[in-house]
Structure formats: structure tokens, C-alpha cells
């Protein structure tokens, strides 16, 4: 038992929303999330018919495709007590944006609202819902934390990851000057407006370097890949990881964008 839940009384049947980026690029984030949830007393399932939350279509103005994908997600996650995503952006899509897609369809709207009411971002679910206060993990080094926009502003994820990181043995925490300013990822924004995105992530990387931290953490893989890619292009040795990995004591994995030495 590596987590001490204070409020959870019996295992909850929780569905993991893996998210498409974690599925494709960084499965360890999904496994870290499962470990954290199971250690907090949940039983975790991964509904097989999930794909993406639909944000690429939603933010490109394609409402019909978004509705089709949302319907699929609503079907896939029917019946679970809670749906948890290791991402504020995808979690926020389910909990804040799905109901508005079905204003002209009361039956679907009711189902979307039902899903919205039981959808959570991982850090917020662990701390705010399950009452987890500490984890049993070890990580050597100074870390800094980027507050991803949707998690921060839509879901209020701010203190939860910091509180849990505070319990990681060996970990020292150091804030950026502006941890709440967008990293410039923005989904398709980063390839539609690469120059602006680059200016934004360049400022972010300077802020990260100024902290002197050796590790950058955040709760959204899109932002992490963007910042990791920039730091590496600049030749920075800062290691980039998803916060769930460090909390689940998986901080020994190769960081994002680094070769996996063990399997070479």
C-alpha cells in the first residue's frame, strides 16, 4: 500500500480514459494512473471502445464530428462510477464541454450531463474526491511544475499535484515565475501557427531554465511533448515527465523524448 486514502471507504469502479496521446506516445502515464487509482482503493477498468475526446474536431469548428465522437465516448463510459483522465484538457472536454454539444437533443444532453458529473482529471480525483494526501514514491532532484491551462482554469487543478509531490521522498520543488502561462501547445494551434507557438514555448523554456530545476512535470501530455521538444531542441538537459509517473514511483523511466537506455 503506497497511498493513504483518508476518505475512500470501499473500492470504486473507475474507468480510465487513457487519452489518445498517452495511448500512442506514453503508455506509462496510463499505467501510472492505474497504479495511483488502485493504491487509493479503486478498481480500474479500461473500456475498449474509447479513442479520443474529440477536441481536434471541436476546436476546429467541426461540430458534427465532435458530436459523433462524444456519443461514442458517452457509450463507452456508460455505467462507471467515475471516469478519470490523466489530462486536464481531455477531462475538461468531458466534464465541461460535452453537454453543450447536445442542446437540441434532450436525451443525449442528459447522458452527456451524467457523464460530465462523474468525469475527473486524475490529480483532482485523487485529492479532491478520494482524499489522498500522500504517496509513497521516491524521486531525486529538483522539479518544477507547469499548470496546464484547461486543468487550471476549467477544473481548478493547482494545489492537488503540488500537495502530492510534497510527499515524494527526495523531491525538491521550485516554482516558475509564471507557471500558469500557456506553453503554446494548444492542440492543432502549435502546427497551424508554429511561429507564435514557438515564441510562447521559448518563453516557457526560459522560465523553466531559470528555476534551475532538473525536471519539469505537468499533468497533460500534449503540453509536455511541446515543452520537451523545445527544451531538447535548445540542448537543455531538463528531464520532462508526466506528474503521475513520478507520483507512482515510476520516475526511473526514460523521460519524454529521451532514448530508453534499458531497451536499446
Amino acid at each position, binding site marked *: 500500500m503506497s497511498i493513504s486514502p483518508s476518505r475512500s471507504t470501499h473500492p470504486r469502479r473507475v474507468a480510465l480514459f487513457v487519452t489518445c496521446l498517452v495511448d*500512442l506516445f506514453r503508455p506509462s502515464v496510463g499505467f501510472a494512473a492505474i497504479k495511483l487509482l488502485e493504491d487509493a482503493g479503486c478498481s480500474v477498468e479500461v473500456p475498449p471502445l474509447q479513442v479520443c475526446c474529440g477536441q481536434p474536431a471541436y476546436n476546429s469548428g467541426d461540430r458534427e*464530428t465532435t458530436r459523433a465522437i462524444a456519443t461514442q465516448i458517452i457509450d463507452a463510459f456508460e455505467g462507471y462510477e467515475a471516469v478519470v483522465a490523466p489530462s486536464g484538457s481531455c477531462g475538461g472536454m468531458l466534464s465541461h464541454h460535452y453537454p453543450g454539444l447536445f442542446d437540441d437533443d434532450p436525451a443525449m444532453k442528459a447522458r452527456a450531463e451524467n457523464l460530465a458529473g462523474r468525469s475527473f482529471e486524475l490529480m483532482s480525483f485523487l485529492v479532491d474526491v478520494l482524499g489522498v494526501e500522500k504517496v509513497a514514491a521516491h524521486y531525486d532532484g529538483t522539479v518544477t511544475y507547469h499548470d496546464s491551462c484547461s486543468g487550471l482554469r476549467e477544473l481548478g487543478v493547482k494545489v492537488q499535484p503540488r500537495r502530492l509531490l510534497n510527499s515524494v521522498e527526495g523531491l525538491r520543488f521550485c516554482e516558475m515565475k509564471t507557471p500558469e502561462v500557456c506553453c503554446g501547445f494548444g492542440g492543432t494551434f*502549435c502546427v497551424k501557427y508554429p511561429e507564435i507557438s514557438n515564441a510562447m514555448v521559448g518563453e516557457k523554456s526560459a522560465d523553466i531554465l531559470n528555476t534551475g530545476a532538473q525536471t519539469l512535470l505537468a499533468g497533460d501530455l500534449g503540453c509536455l511533448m511541446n515543452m520537451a*521538444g523545445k527544451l531538447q531542441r535548445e540542448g537543455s538537459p531538463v528531464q520532462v515527465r508526466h506528474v503521475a509517473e513520478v507520483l507512482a514511483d515510476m520516475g526511473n523511466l526514460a523521460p519524454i523524448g529521451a532514448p530508453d537506455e534499458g531497451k536499446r
Partner: protein
Amino acid sequence: MQSTAHDFKDNVGAALANPNLQESLTMLKVGFSERRRLAAERLPEFEALRDRARDIKNHALANLDFYLEEFERKVIGLGGHVHWAPTAADARRIIAELCQSVGARTVAKSKSMVAEEIALNEHLEAIGIAPIETDLGEYIIQLRNEPPSHIIAPAVHLTKDQVADTFLEHHTPLGFTKRLTERNDLVAEARYVLRQKFLDADVGLTGANFLVAETGSSMLVTNEGNADLSNTLPKMHIVLATIEKVIPTLEDAAVLLRVLARSATGQESSAYTTLNTGPKRAGDLDGPSAYHVVILDNGRSNVLGTEMQEILRCIRCGACMNHCPVYGAVGGHAYGWVYPGPMGAVLTPQLIGVEEASNLPNASTFCGRCESVCPVRIPLPKLMRHWREREFERHLTPKAVRQGLALWGFLARRPKLYRRLTGIANRVLALFGRAEGRYGALPLAGGWTRFRDFPAPQPGGTFHSQWARHGGTRTRP
């Protein structure tokens, strides 16, 4: 003002390559947001005031016809005149005729974004009337023949050195031949040059922050007092305002003022708050003998009752652009028209057409910082997304984006096929990226890899393939 919004991407390139602009933006990004944060923290009821401000504007917009007519009745009762201008051309014509009616040669103008919107200066110059900008920032950019780059700080894109050069160039013929380097000296020189222009002006033209229906007052805030000189010294005062500026009562104005200055500059109150209530009355020591209010629609009434209506709550504080990382990277000129930043990304397509301004609502990460500071709680990202929906419906979205989206949408709706293909993509990307852990260049991902490395996937297959392989139990990679 001639729009260059369709050249947004070129404008962005120029902005990012402009060292003076980048230096100025560095100052803006820290200063405005920090001052606003401190001002909000000092007022415990600030969040509640934002709710009230939103409700006041919503009420006014829901009863706009009533309050506009009430305002008109009051102005007429005071001896003033109200002119209704459906379009920008109507407003230009009305103002030109008013100026000509008193034989005006110069017009002292205090800062008005609506005057920029209707390109008033160009029109006045064309008929031989000289508009004199009296707001310091507007004065500077008028000398430089540039448009404003910010709705409350029009010359924020310039450094002090650039202003010093501009003053030296334009003030030398007036006898000021020394290049100044201190801020206060620059302000003093501008003040001296402008003072005579106030005294000489035949007409004073101001904007309005609010039109108060119950009293017929137009309300204006400034930090320089230039508006007060513009509206008291000349014999005619023209107020140029748009329909959504009307609010019911002075009490409402008090609420809005409390959130306006704090959101804009972090001040508790602007240095000058002026109420203009009709022309000079018998016994008044000063003031204009003629008082005219020109109320412009210019497409705004089309927004009423639509999903975009909330943008009409905007009180032009500039907080959205002060907090916008995109504005902070490229400045206001890149947006290509009068209103930059998030509020401009929503309003500009409405006023000049979404075909012309199609980039503006797309150039946002939807980070939500604008909405989080808006004093009247306009859901700016949501409204930008509505524009994207309209663009998509009208096939204005670029073809490559549409095609990519269609392919992705096709796959995302077929989970089994999606799994097979992402499984292959995952293995290929992991295999070839194995040695470095990342890619410096990748076909079809030039937008990414031009500036950033692209992380290769972890080895071992997608999450779902690993999960299935282990029979749906937790595994440790």
C-alpha cells in the same frame, strides 16, 4: 482603418522579427497582469463586482432599444443632439457635417477606438480638417502615421527611444531641437506642444466609456485629462459612441467603473472621470455651446440575439489582451485592424467579415486566461470557437485542415481500425526514434519540427495493445 487581418501570418512574422516591439511587449506582459492581480486582491468584493458588472450589461443589452431612446430623450432635454449612425460611412458624414457647420479647421480628439473603427481621421483630412490626437499615445502614433496597437495603450508597441526619435523629428520645426531621453521630459514637451492645439481647436471629439440613460450623460475616463480639455475648450463637443455603451443608471456606472480601472491598469480609479451632461448651461463658467452625441451601430445590432451577443458586454478595458500569450508574442498590429487580442478576435470578424479576419479566432490556444480576467465575464474562447464553427460551415477552414480532420474523424469513429493503424504508427515511430528518443525532422510534421524535436513513443506498443496483451490487468512497462 484599412484591414491587414487577412495577412495575419505575415504580420506575425514581421512582429516576431521586430526587436523594438519584442522589447516593449516584455514590459507589457509583466506590468499589466501583475498590477491587475494586486488590484483585484486588494478588493475583497472584486469577484462579486464582476458578476454585477456582467448582469448590468446583460440587462442593458436585453433592453437596448428602451435605454437608447431614454438616453436620447434626456440629451435632447438638456439641449443636446443625438445622431443615429447605422454605418461607419453615416458616422463619418454626420461628424464631417457637424465640423463644417462651425467652419472647423482643427478637431481636438481624445482617444476613441470607435473613431479608428470608422477611419475618421483620414476622412477629416480629406475634407481639409486637421484631427489632433491629444492622448499622448495617440499623439505619438499620429506623428508616426501608425495605427494603435492596444485599445487602452495605443503606443505600447514603441520603446522610449523610438518616441524620443519621433519627437525630435516632428518637434524640431517647432523649435525643440534637443533629443530627450527622460520620460518626464518627453511628456512635458508633448504637453507644451499640445496645449496650444487645445486652445485653437474648433471642435472637441471624444469617445465614451458609458452612456448613462437616466441622466443623458456620457462618461469618460482618462489618465491624462486630455479629454476634459477636448470637451470644455472648443465651442462644439461631439461624442462618438456605439450602441452597446448605454447603461441604465449612474449607480450602474459606479459598479462598472470599479471593475474597469482595476482590470485595465490596476488602478482603483482612473485619474480623471468625466461626466458630460449636455452643453454649457446659463451660468456655467465653461463648456461647449453645442453638444452632439453620434451613436454608431456598424453591425452590432446584428449580434443581438445571437450566440455572439456576449461580446457586446465588453467595456474595453484591455485586460484580455494584457493577459493573452498570443498578443504578448506578436503585439496588436499583427491582428491587422482596430481591435486586437481576444476581444478583437471575436469582434473583428463581426465588423469586417470573417472571410477577411478568418485567422483571428483561430490564432488562440484557448488557454482561457482572457476569460479568467474579463471584468464582465465574456466567455471569449467559446465565442472564438463559434467563429471557427461558422468558418467550418462556410468552408473557410483551410483545405489541408479540413482533409486532415476528415481522415482523423473517420478513424476516430472506428475504434478497431484506429487501434490497428495507431499500433502500426506507434511501432514505426518507436523503432526509428529508438536511438535518439526523438525526431529532429518528421514528414508531415514540419510545423512542429521546425522549432521543436518530436518525442518518439515509448517502446512496447500502444497503451491499449499492452493492456490487451496482459489480459486487462495492470502491468509495469
